């Protein structure tokens, strides 16, 4: 029996595998549920299949076997373009259109959805404010912004058509630590108001602990475990423990250097 889409998980992976055409296995036997309104962090090293998992959700990739469901219906059955327009997408390289102003960048989805011009303008101003940018930046081009500002525009653009789901692929990865921390904090407070369902890819345990409602740890194409941040820190799982050790040894050596 199908579950009521309004109560079931926002996103569901059922026995999903993804192989490259060459036969190389990227992802195998993935079963995962993303709950409504949570921030699920996919944590793992590069090559662990995090980004692939993310792209299976908005059909940038199609699973070799298994099924991905979004809000109760299989994505394979949906029109890919429509599906993507109701899922926000932020990537590390940001992918802002260099030939569009900030305003036009934020308005990409409203434009292709043919919103009236005035509504787009109003929404853009609202979003700029939401992500903490001056309204006067609307007329600038991406190359005239700082890295942090660009990333804010990337977030605003993903939120433009008010999607229920947000996919974020290491969105703060390329920022300096202070700006990253600032954006993480703002993103959390934004999420407290918006209650989006967020799938967030990172390789940074600190970021995962800070942002995640739950952390899904991935390694060589497999889901190792899903834990809350608190559970993660005390997990006996060898993989999780290794992450925590690496994280703490970073803190310790910082501390030692401080006292030496």
């Amino acid at each position, binding site marked *: 029996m199908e579950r009521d889409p309004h109560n079931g998980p926002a996103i569901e992976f059922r026995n999903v595998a993804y192989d490259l055409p060459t036969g190389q296995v990227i992802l195998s036997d993935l079963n995962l549920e993303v709950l409504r309104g949570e921030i699920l962090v996919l944590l793992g090293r590069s090559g662990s299949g995090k980004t692939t998992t993310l792209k299976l959700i*908005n059909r940038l990739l199609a699973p070799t076997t298994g099924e991905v469901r979004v809000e109760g219906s299989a994505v394979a059955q949906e029109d890919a373009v*429509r599906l993507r327009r109701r899922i926000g997408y932020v990537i590390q390289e940001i*992918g802002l259109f260099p030939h569009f102003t900030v305003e036009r960048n934020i308005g990409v*989805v409203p434009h292709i959805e043919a919103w009236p011009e005035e509504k787009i303008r109003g929404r853009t101003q609202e979003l700029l404010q939401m992500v903490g940018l001056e309204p006067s930046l609307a007329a600038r081009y991406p190359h005239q912004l700082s890295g942090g500002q660009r990333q804010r525009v990337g977030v605003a653009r993903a939120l433009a058509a008010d999607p229920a789901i947000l996919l974020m692929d290491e969105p703060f990865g390329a920022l300096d630590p202070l700006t990253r921390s600032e954006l993480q904090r703002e993103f959390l407070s934004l999420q407290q108001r918006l209650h989006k369902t967020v799938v967030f890819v990172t390789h940074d345990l600190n970021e995962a602990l800070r942002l995640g409602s739950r952390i899904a740890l991935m390694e060589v194409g497999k889901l190792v475990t899903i834990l809350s941040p608190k559970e993660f820190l005390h997990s006996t799982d060898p993989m999780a423990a290794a992450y925590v050790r690496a994280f703490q040894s970073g803190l310790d050596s910082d501390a030692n250097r401080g006292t030496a």
Partner: protein
Amino acid sequence: MNWFHFIVQNHGQVLELTLEHLWMVGVSTLLAALIGIPLGILIAHRPILNKPVLATANIIQTIPSLALFGFLLPVPWLGDRAERLAILALTLYALLPLIRNTYTGIRGVDPAVVEAGRGMGMTDRQLLFQVELPLALSVILSGVRVAVVISVGLATIAAAIGAGGLGELIFRGLAMVNNQLILAGAIPAALLALLADFSLGWLERRLRPR
């Protein structure tokens, strides 16, 4: 009589030949753009076609122009009027820079930008017209510039088959062993090439994405 005096005294004729020249270059460039740009877009999206298409355009480019004009002469309809033939030959020569630059321009668009567009739900067509082509425009335009400059030069040879243009003065000068007559054709042709080069170069810089 030096070349400058010749031009002044026969300005009507020189102007007419210049216009003929421009007409051949303009029409052939337009035709080449109508064929070459879509082909370039196609091979940028279908990598399998890339080698055969570029190789064909390359081979065409290696045919000596005088030989190509000669080959095409017996073709029916085409051979009836030298002008048609010249335009076809010039179109063929202009294809390579247009195909190659369109291909390079589109392949050079940051993959992250294309993926972001696709991930936000742009259709292939929206991606092409709103993202790929605008970002590739200056590279495509530099292909147009190369094509035009090549055409202006090649079009002088079209006079050998009676297609007119500034080459006529050059060939007449060669036949009469009159250097001034040769210069009266060659200098306006060179000026045309320089003018096209400068103006298209300016446009290209204006349109370059930041």
